[in-house]
């Protein structure tokens, strides 16, 4: 069960090698979290992530999960929920793709969309139903500022996050009053292996900062969290910039 501050005792991370996912798990383990499930494609990286979290004292288990294999989600995630309550699900998987290459390779672009969006739709719905049946829990969805407005430089990734963001918002409304809390997290540029080598955007942040924002959001039962918080104001402005002008902005 979560405590009065919304901190879960058990956590399921979808995208078990995600740096933000692991930073969040590490942070929550120092609070109340004792059981962590890492869901991801079986790999040495997944095992290493589990081993590292075990070092901080949690009971860590892994489960094979592939975002692209939507048909298997029901069975893989259902198994996790039959083992006991999951107080929080962190939907942290996603790929950035390579915009320049993907524009010339439609199938690669579709893979980005399938991972980030359709994979999240099936996994999100499976988890939402399980959380609803147990009458409590938080579903935390990692969206992105890139989904807030399409940009020339990464609109394939951005459009997939836009879909995910809209899906999570709607799901949150659908689950309102059921005891299940859906929280959409919109980080800006996060310094991780996914963004290594990219030019850093203004207001860049770190996985640890995202984890801290998630903990605060859980306590406040927030519906939307921006990381850093200043992005809420920045994006509120950028959203309304006319397109001819927006096109020319160095964003």
């Amino acid at each position: 069960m979560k405590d009065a501050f919304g901190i879960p005792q058990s956590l399921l991370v979808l995208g078990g090698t995600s740096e933000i996912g692991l930073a969040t798990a590490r942070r929550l383990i120092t609070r109340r979290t004792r059981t962590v499930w890492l869901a991801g494609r079986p790999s040495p990286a997944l095992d290493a992530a589990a081993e590292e979290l075990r070092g901080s004292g949690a009971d860590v288990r892994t489960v094979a999960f592939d975002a692209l294999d939507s048909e298997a989600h029901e069975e893989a995630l259902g198994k996790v929920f039959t083992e006991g309550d999951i107080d929080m699900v962190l939907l942290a998987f996603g790929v950035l793709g390579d915009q320049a290459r993907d524009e010339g390779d439609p199938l690669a672009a579709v893979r980005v969309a399938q991972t980030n969006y359709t994979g999240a739709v099936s996994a999100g719905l499976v988890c939402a139903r399980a959380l609803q049946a147990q009458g409590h829990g938080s579903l935390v969805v990692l969206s992105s500022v890139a989904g807030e407005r399409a940009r020339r430089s990464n609109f394939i990734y951005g459009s997939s996050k836009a879909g995910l963001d809209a899906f999570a918002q709607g799901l949150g409304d659908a689950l309102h009053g059921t005891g299940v809390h859906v929280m959409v997290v919109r980080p800006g540029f996060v310094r991780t292996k996914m963004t290594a080598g990219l030019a850093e955007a203004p207001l860049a942040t770190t996985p640890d900062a995202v984890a801290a924002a998630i903990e605060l959001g859980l306590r406040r039962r927030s519906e939307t969290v921006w990381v850093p918080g200043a992005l809420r104001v920045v994006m509120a402005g950028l959203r309304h910039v006319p397109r001819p002008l927006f096109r020319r902005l160095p964003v």
Partner: protein
Amino acid sequence: MAAAPSPTAPTSPGYDTVPVTGWGRTAPTSAHLVRPRSYEETVAAVRECAVTGRRGGIARGLGRAYGDAAQNAGGAVLDMTGLDRIHAIDAAGGTVLCDAGVSLHRLMEVLLPLGWFVPVTPGTRYVTVGGAIGADIHGKNHHVHGSFSRHVEALELLTADGEVRMVERGTELFDATAGGMGLTGVILTATVRLQRVETSLMSVDTERATDLDDLMARLTATDHRYRYSVAWIDLLARGSALGRAVLTRGDHAPLDALPARARRAPLEFRPGRLPAPPAFVPEGLLGRTTVGLFNELWYRRAPRLRTGELQKLAAFFHPLDGVPHWNRVYGRGGFVQYQFVVGYGQEDALRRVVRRISERRCPSFLAVLKRFGDSDPGWLSFPMPGWTLALDIPASLPGLGAFLDELDEEVAAADGRVYLAKDSRLRPELLDAMYPRLADFRSLRARLDPAGVFRSDLSRRLSL
């Protein structure tokens, strides 16, 4: 007021899925709310809990437990306030046999005109008899009269097998149920021994203590002279004023203490009510500034020493009951109650905790210190001989979770414990040290309720 029965679940009357929280309004979870109106419906509801899924059920009274004791995510919550009959009053011997859903408020309304009072009352009258036993509540008279269960002769308990058992004092099942947070079964009725009173007024002595040591010295020296005793403590005071307090202590006023006019209706009981706060209060209304100001005024307003003041019952015992939904003043973030006890001889631990709370500048305007007397046999009963401090803090205070964890360590190291009826955040690892009979409780539950029919968010969170 009562919602129409939902058409989706014809088997149970008044069947709704609703979000439920404790009085502190933190951590809502959703449950099927069942409102039984008879013993038969209660038995049927418990039998249904046993067959439908693995989420179980828990009895709930008036929802005054601060934390998650009467919540049951995804399962059933049995609202017992529909079972509220008073069956028999022995006006000569001073006992009452009533349903568990009867509130202490109702008992006072009925019993006071007969010259009887409830044996133990907490800071609110709006608790049920069942809840009073389940949490084994204590009041301002604990140092002389113990907790509520000491005054319960027997109770009827509906257990997981659907049977109703008569549970007498002195049995294992009684001791597991008193303070057992509703996890041994649903209490249906109880026979409670009452307190004889001549009037419905209190004779109250008030005095100020300038700091914590002064307060503890005064309480230690003179507490035994009073039936009721409590100290309000200013936890925002610092330096030499650390722990300054206002002591209010007293007893039921005898008839001859009343002025002539009041003697015509000495047992009158008509508590007033103020308007409730609005449903939405901005978070942070009770910050350090406002609470600091309140505490300053509250302390200054109290007389240095006043004796024999006549107060109404409600003003002495239940000042907050005059404000319906007072828990809303903390805003939607809610608040956390922290109550712990450390034994006599552990005064240093108490001093350290008070100092830390003061240094941390926790805005608490309802901090209360009192001395407990002998404990009662309830396995998970909270009171034990020693000092108990209770305070409430807005849940939105940054870093509060980690801070309270540190206080828990201090309390556990001093062989103390925190109160489960108020808890919503304790680290499960500390529970065994705080409640030495926990293993007995768990094994009795395993025997009595192997399928886990009775469950609550509290029992899941702490693996009770």
